[in-house]
């Protein structure tokens, strides 16, 4: 079950309000996305912690509804 870009961006921003989100389709099926997320809240955190913050925004939907999200995260 795919997830459209607008919904992905909405979920990330609901968890990390200041996030700048850039999405790229890896495959044109709304199901394989690459996301670059930039937020001041990432500053000083390890990449794992940064990714965990983004993953948490999706809850159980990651891995099921959203099949693949390739993440790049950083502070501005």
């Amino acid at each position, binding site marked *: 079950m795919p997830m459209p870009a607008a919904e992905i961006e909405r979920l990330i921003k609901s968890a990390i309000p200041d996030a700048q989100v850039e999405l790229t389709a890896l495959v044109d099926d709304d199901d394989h996305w690459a996301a670059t997320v930039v937020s001041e809240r990432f500053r000083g955190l390890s990449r794992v912690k940064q990714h965990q913050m983004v993953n948490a925004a999706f809850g159980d939907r990651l*891995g099921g509804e959203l099949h693949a999200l390739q993440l790049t995260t950083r502070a501005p």
Partner: protein
Amino acid sequence: MSDDTNARIKSEIESSDVVLFMKGTPQAPQCGFSMQVVQILNHLGVPYKAINVLADGAIREGIKAYSNWPTIPQLYVKNEFIGGCDIAKEMFQSGELVALFDKEGVPHAQSGKA
């Protein structure tokens, strides 16, 4: 996750300096993401212990909860969760992975040459 699975994962992570939870084996990876991390570790000449999650359903599901990380592969260095394929690749390319191994005293092919 059962206490038993939790204890088994913990003991696996503590059993070696570098531990990779992966799909398949280093000789025959069953997933492209697992294969990429194997290639990085082999390239760096780091000794590591690989755990095939496909051979153990309890570990396969348990490690995701243990690390709070939804996907396999998962790389541990000195009991610390480093990340999955994307992070390992990014850290390899930036040189951070080698720096981490140096800092943690993990031997690799470039040890002492820098």
